[in-house]
């Protein structure tokens, strides 16, 4: 694991803590999409929707729920659609 991924893992752990304390505004599906995107973004930079859907955490999530979660994460500033590539690629953002 690289330095960035360790920081990401620590951030994921503390997001879990934030969520348990009711300080975070993400649903469980949104959180799983964000975790999955963080995992892939470490190695690839941007992450493709189809790759996200195949992630172990999202295997049981239906397609409509997945896309609703994805849209909501974009709205909340956690993910951003890649501008300089074809559709379906997302960048993990530091949420505001």
């Amino acid at each position, binding site marked *: 694991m690289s330095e960035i991924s*360790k920081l990401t893992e620590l951030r994921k752990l503390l997001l*879990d803590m934030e969520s348990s304390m009711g300080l975070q505004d993400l649903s469980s599906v949104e959180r799983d999409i964000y*975790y999955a995107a963080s995992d892939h973004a470490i190695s690839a930079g941007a992450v493709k929707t189809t790759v996200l859907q195949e992630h172990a955490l999202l295997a049981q999530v239906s397609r409509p729920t997945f896309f609703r979660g994805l849209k909501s994460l974009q709205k909340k500033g956690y993910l951003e659609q890649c501008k300089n590539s074809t559709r379906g690629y997302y960048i993990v953002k530091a949420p505001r």
Partner: protein
Amino acid sequence: MGQQRLIQETGIVSLAYLAAFFVTFEILMPVQSIFFPEFNNQASLLFLPHGVRVLSAWLLGWRSVLALLPGVFIVFVYSAGDLAFTPSRLAGIAIAVTIPATIFHLLRLLGWDLSPATGRRPCWPCIMVAGLLISLFTSVLTNFAFGSAAEEYVAYLIGDVFGLFFLMLILMLIFRSLRRYGV
């Protein structure tokens, strides 16, 4: 590349350990002695360095042994002076750096793998449980090496568990603030 990463990890973890130690002993302990003067003045009720030991062992595994070593050694020399080189203190240093990674490894062997991995949800209460186990084993072994009194076990245990929780809470608030300012 691997050696450079190890040096970098050792620097970050040991500095974090030293920072946690100085905050605990130079800021929190004087406050503690005002509110709980009857408590043993060596046992902090909010021992933040335990959090650094647990989180570094969780993130780095066995590499945390080397990463923690300089920080733990400096703390022992700072607290005990020349006595840091006595067999009991050296045993204390060895216990402090090896037990966290050993407990995570034992838990993995017992089928409870908490190490961060792709596709695994993080679980902060699980880290707290691991931290409690690490504290139990560390305090029993350290007190055995030092020949400390039984009531100190409880004080160390409370300090470790609260230390881990509050360190995670502090980090959570730092990450939240960083997010707010877009860092």
